[in-house]
């Protein structure tokens, strides 16, 4: 049985929303980072599905770029989290309010 494009897009939207909610409500910087990864992968799902449905490869090429960028982002992100952990001994984002107003 063929699954229509709409189902893929809907699943992708749900995953994306879960990622957004994770960013908004989890306190742990690393979990937030993982939520962002979830958002990116939700988009990847859409891209692949759309690419398959219209028979154009460039969407899938973009997915490879997204994956490598996500890896680079994760590397930098974790390094920053480590740096701040050394300073504050915390990864709770609510503790980082030196600059405000």
């Amino acid at each position: 049985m063929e699954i229509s494009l709409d189902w893929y897009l809907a699943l992708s939207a749900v995953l994306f929303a879960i990622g957004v909610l994770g960013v908004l409500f989890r306190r742990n910087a690393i979990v937030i980072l993982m939520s962002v990864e979830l958002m990116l992968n939700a988009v990847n799902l859409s891209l692949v599905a759309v690419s398959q449905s219209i028979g154009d490869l460039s969407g899938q090429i973009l997915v490879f770029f997204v994956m490598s960028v996500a890896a680079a982002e994760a590397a930098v992100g974790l390094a920053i989290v480590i740096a701040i952990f050394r300073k504050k001994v915390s990864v709770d984002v609510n503790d980082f309010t030196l600059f405000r107003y």
Partner: protein
Amino acid sequence: MDLTGAYASLGSDLGNAFSLVLLSVVGLVMVVWDSLRNDHRAIPWIGVAASVLAISFELLRMPGPAEKIFYGLMWAGGYASFVNIIILAATAFTLAISVHYLDRIGHNYGEVYSLVVFASAGMIVLGSANSLITVFVGLETMSICLYILTGLVRTEEGSVESALKYFLLGAFSTGFFLYGIALLYAATGTLYLDEMPAALAGGAGSEVLLWGGVGLLFIGFLFKVSAAPFHMWTPDVYQGAPTTLTGYMSTASKASAFAALVLVVYHALPAERWMLVLAIVAAATMILGNVVAIAQSNVKRMLAYSSIAHAGYVLVGIAAGTTAGYSGALFYLLVYTLMNIGAFGVMAALEWDGHVGQKQDLDSLAGIGYRKPLLGVSMGFFMFSLTGFPPLGGFIGKYAVFAPAIDAGLTWLVIVGLLTSAASAYYYLRVLYVFWMKSPEEEAAPALDQLMASPLSMSTSVVLVVCAGLLLVLGIYPGVLESTTLFFSDSAAAVAAIR
């Protein structure tokens, strides 16, 4: 796609993308040089030399019309050259003023300079993209380098904290941006900007997918240019980052993100529908940036809000939706780059608190104009230009973005712009008031006295004088503005043919 002779045009493509290739190669050379030799004094100057070389190349390339290279992935020449010149100038200026500054704060690492160069390479990709793939890759190359640069001063809690904020929010907005690309792809079936109008004319895809995609795509750009309400990272990040690099971030990255936004709306989108969104965002941005800037006492934070406000002015030009508006926006970016790099450069040279300027307030700099006249006078140029006084570039810039908006019927938006720029005089001129007319307090900070005793570095002086001089030239001879209008009229006919 037929791949016969796929490498046939590689040679000419590489030649057309000379700046990009040069910066990438030089960036690699800088990394290697830094790891092989202990002495990294020469590294920034390699970068400066490469930027200057690339600028001269782009100057030669600029008069011609823009053409597609790398199978339509990027533009070269014409307005792409103009944008590249802004980016490259910001790079060269930043490298030159950073040397002394980073030395002074004790964080002069060789890889800083190569990161700046790599970020610039990313910006060039972003600012001359013709495909959403290149937009994405350029945006991310730039952003990742900037995250690292923000957190450069590892010993300073504020610096790391602002890097974390920048990173988390940047990645978050990238998610929306990418989702927008996916939806737009679903609606049009292509990732090439200049193929989208044809696809849309064919009636492919649904309205919701298309406009939802456009909206989300805008989010990514609006975040990068710090437009309200996506601006909230800006003050915190600008205040925490090393000052000269803040100048770089606030100018080059904005210039390339705006350039990409212009490319998207110019090549891909039918007018009208998106104009209202940008107009409303522009109004909110101008009001918020200017009003909150008035309440700031830390100059770096004040300049951060000011850069938010200026993003609003550029958006006014783009919201006009006409080629005159786009070229006005590009011209404004050039002027804005000069004055903001200059202003941050002055603040970098006056930084005495030992905390990357996070703690010192404006009043501690009373009477500084007489002690360091070059800084005082050039700050006068930058502040007057930021306010938009004639005969400086800032005035012509504001004119260049406001006039097309009036022609496009956005009079209310221009009125908001004029009122808020009038309000901005308050905080810009206050800087000059403190610099020149306020008597210093009885006991100045010893660190400040020590800083005043040491001479300004040659490279900083040269950069400040060049920035101030160019602002004056752009204000007195607004001929550059006319040349930017040619960029779009050239290819407008081509686009019309496609439609």
